[in-house]
């Protein structure tokens, strides 16, 4: 069998440095270590261009190169003949390498020394397996494909977004042992992502937001490419990433900063995969781990497959809800379960739709506006049953992205209420319908 790049992917994880030989037009060889030989696609590898050096001088004059790699588990050795083609200094591949290199730099004490100027792309001319003994791989090191099959079969049958997200994250833990996971959805108008489901964190963090381009998740979303980092990296830590993005953009005033991001304090492995349908970014599926090098190329493949399935399913879920719903929910009177104790003041600041329950922050933005609308109708008409469709059509909400994201915003709102406000609930009553359940007397205070 002719060896291809995908036969030697473990060698391309950056665990053991590669060795690269080039030579000048007058036949003087140069040999150097490279921290990672990166898989660009099935026929190309990329090497980091960090400094102007002899290697660079050589490949610009003579594109032939030879690289030697070691399998980090079996000790099998491989040698590849390469042909330099071009250098990329922006875009998805560049960002993937930059994130990965940042992890390698922190891990090897090279923080601030490694700096990616470009991704040098080489065509793989041939791959040769070198003779010698190899260590057998442990039997447990199987592929994630059976787990992937089980997960896909489960989620493809689900027709409700809330249920789908919950099952997805539970099944990722069950079948792939991904214990810390989240789904974020895109708010295209405000160039940010909001957290809609999480699993395995000390606080759910539902509602927390990340600007596009910030951290591993934000870069994966902005570049629409998977980003995988195999070691802890301060450069891509959430707090720093968001701070940097805020400083750089200076415009993310609508960003949710009251709800803390739910990640691990210092993840040692991170993998973010964009959910993209046609040209539209729908969100990001993200997993992290306190263990170094937790996620492999195979794991990245598996999450990409799941993200592709989500990209097909998510838009359909909202449409199905819309079709199933009546124009209006029923006009039943409000349930009379209100606690007779002192009323609770719900305050909404209309400039950003932030909602406070007795001075405690609940939510803002689209979800805040929706809640305020529901509570206003409830107070005025005693109505408790609503449909997604009527909210979609409600001109008073005047929110640019509500058509795409209403279902997700309702899930977010429901979860925030579950976590923060025991006397206001949203209960699903059918496809595209839900009920507002209020068990205390409310005083609404809208502030301009």
């Amino acid at each position, binding site marked *: 069998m002719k060896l291809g790049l995908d036969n030697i992917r473990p060698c391309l994880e950056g665990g053991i*440095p590669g*060795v690269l*030989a*080039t*030579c000048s*037009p007058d*036949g*003087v*060889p*140069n*040999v*150097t*270590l490279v*921290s990672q030989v990166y898989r660009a696609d099935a026929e190309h590898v990329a090497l980091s261009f*960090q*400094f102007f*050096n*002899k290697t660079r001088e050589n490949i610009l004059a*003579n594109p*032939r*190169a*030879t*690289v*030697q790699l*070691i399998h980090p588990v*079996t*000790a099998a*050795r491989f*040698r590849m*003949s390469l042909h330099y083609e071009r250098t990329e200094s922006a875009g998805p591949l560049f960002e993937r390498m930059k994130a990965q290199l940042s992890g390698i730099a922190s891990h*090897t004490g*090279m923080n601030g*020394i*490694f700096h990616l100027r470009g991704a040098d792309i080489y065509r793989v001319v041939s791959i040769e397996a*070198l*003779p*010698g*003994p*190899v*260590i057998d791989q442990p039997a447990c090191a199987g592929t994630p494909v059976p787990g992937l099959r089980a997960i896909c079969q489960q989620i493809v049958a689900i027709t409700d977004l809330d249920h789908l997200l919950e099952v997805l994250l539970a099944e990722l833990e069950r079948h792939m042992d991904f214990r810390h996971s989240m789904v974020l959805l895109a708010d295209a108008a405000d160039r940010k992502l909001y957290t809609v489901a999480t699993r395995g964190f000390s606080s759910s963090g539902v509602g927390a937001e990340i600007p596009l381009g910030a951290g591993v998740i934000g870069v994966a979303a902005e570049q629409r490419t998977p980003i995988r980092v195999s070691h802890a990296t301060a450069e891509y830590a959430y707090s720093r990433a968001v701070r940097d993005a805020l400083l750089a953009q200076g415009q993310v005033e609508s960003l949710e900063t009251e709800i803390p991001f739910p990640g691990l304090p210092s993840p040692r492995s991170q993998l973010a995969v964009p959910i993209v349908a046609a040209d539209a970014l729908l969100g990001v599926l993200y997993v992290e781990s306190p263990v170094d090098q937790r996620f492999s190329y195979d794991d990245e493949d598996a999450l990409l497959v799941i993200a592709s399935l989500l990209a097909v399913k998510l838009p359909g879920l909202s449409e199905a809800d819309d079709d199933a719903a009546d124009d209006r929910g029923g006009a039943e009177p409000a349930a009379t379960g209100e606690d007779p104790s002192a009323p609770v003041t719900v305050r909404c600041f209309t400039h950003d739709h932030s909602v406070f329950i007795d001075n405690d922050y609940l939510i803002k933005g689209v979800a805040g506006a929706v809640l305020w609308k529901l509570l206003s109708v409830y107070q005025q008409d005693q109505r408790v049953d609503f449909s997604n469709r009527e909210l979609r059509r409600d001109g008073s909400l005047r929110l640019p992205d509500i058509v795409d994201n209403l279902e997700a915003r309702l899930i977010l709102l429901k979860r925030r209420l579950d976590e923060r406000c025991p006397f206001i609930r949203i209960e699903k009553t059918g496809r595209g319908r839900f009920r507002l359940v209020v068990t205390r007397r409310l005083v609404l205070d809208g502030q301009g």
Partner: protein
Amino acid sequence: MDRLIDAATASFMLGGLSLNLASCDPRLQPSLARACGCDLDADGGRLSICVGRVQGAQVLGDIVAGAAVAAVFSEVVSHRTLQIKASSAVVRAPTRADHAAVDRYLERFATRLDAIGFTPRFVSALFSFDAGDFMVVEMRPEEIYSQTPGPGAGQRLQAAA
């Protein structure tokens, strides 16, 4: 004549470093092989590098044909790296002393790799085939460069007089 490789550098080079040797063919395709041992004579003027005969067939062939050589020595934890170049080298069969050099090298390299989590079994798998059948590339170092990662990488350290 100043020594190109002083005593401290020699001691570093013989300390069980990751060691690779490169040359190139007339079409300017680089050849490359991992070495399984090395030695320096007392004044640092002659460097011997041991390379498996099968794995190193291309690089040995290129050197025999008269091509220049480059060898890179890298300390796996500190990343301190040196590259040594020579405009030519000879390839010869190993002596008893070369076998002893290979044994010394593998023992020292295994100790260094063990410290970062690679088992003796892994190191043995990596080298046993080459160490069982190797040739020796002997050169007079002409140029030495620092290749420790960072802006100073590639700097020429000292020239032979």
